[in-house]
């Protein structure tokens, strides 16, 4: 699964650390999501959606092997 978190974060000029604090997670979690090494839970996906004010579908897209 791909995501556009890095782009969305750049639009809002947020650092990984700032976003992690806003979401109440570690910076490693944000980094791993951005690098597609970790697929977040629905709860985290909805938190991202609320912070960036865009639908979850705009963040995450399924790939062929998903």
């Amino acid at each position, binding site marked *: 699964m791909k995501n556009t978190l890095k782009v969305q974060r750049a639009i809002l000029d947020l650092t990984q650390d700032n976003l*992690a604090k806003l979401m*109440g*997670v*570690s910076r*490693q*979690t944000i*980094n*791993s999501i951005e690098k597609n*090494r*970790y697929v*977040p*839970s629905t*709860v*985290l996906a909805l938190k991202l959606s609320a912070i960036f004010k865009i639908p979850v579908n705009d963040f995450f897209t399924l790939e062929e092997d998903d």
Partner: protein
Amino acid sequence: MSKQTICERERSHLDKMNKFQLGNQFKKIGYMIAIGAFILMIGRKYIEDSEWIRPILHGILLIGLLVISLSKEKIEDEFMDSLRSQSYRLAFLMAILYSLAQPIVNYGLAVLFNQNDELEYFDYFQVLFFMLIVQLMFFWKLKGMNK
């Protein structure tokens, strides 16, 4: 009590057990216990008639490692939970492989060096120590890989 209530209570107990963790401050305590027990284990070799203390120190060392293993990170989130689960799974599999391979390796070495040809077994401490160390090492490694 209805069957559904019993099932719900059982599920709630399992959830509690599954989510059980110690606070981050326990990590330091765990390190102190484990390192202290390890130092005493080394020191024990220089004391005569200290064989009785060995299983006690083994137990204390295992408790120390277990406390480290169960302690939360400073920021414990779902990602850390996922890394922890991966490390437990890997440690479990490695411990089984270790338990299967260790007697054969011991036997091979005994034959190679013309020692006692009996199949040598190992105690619970070796397996549990190996399992806890492997779990902690995999957890640290996985955390380091995702920095």
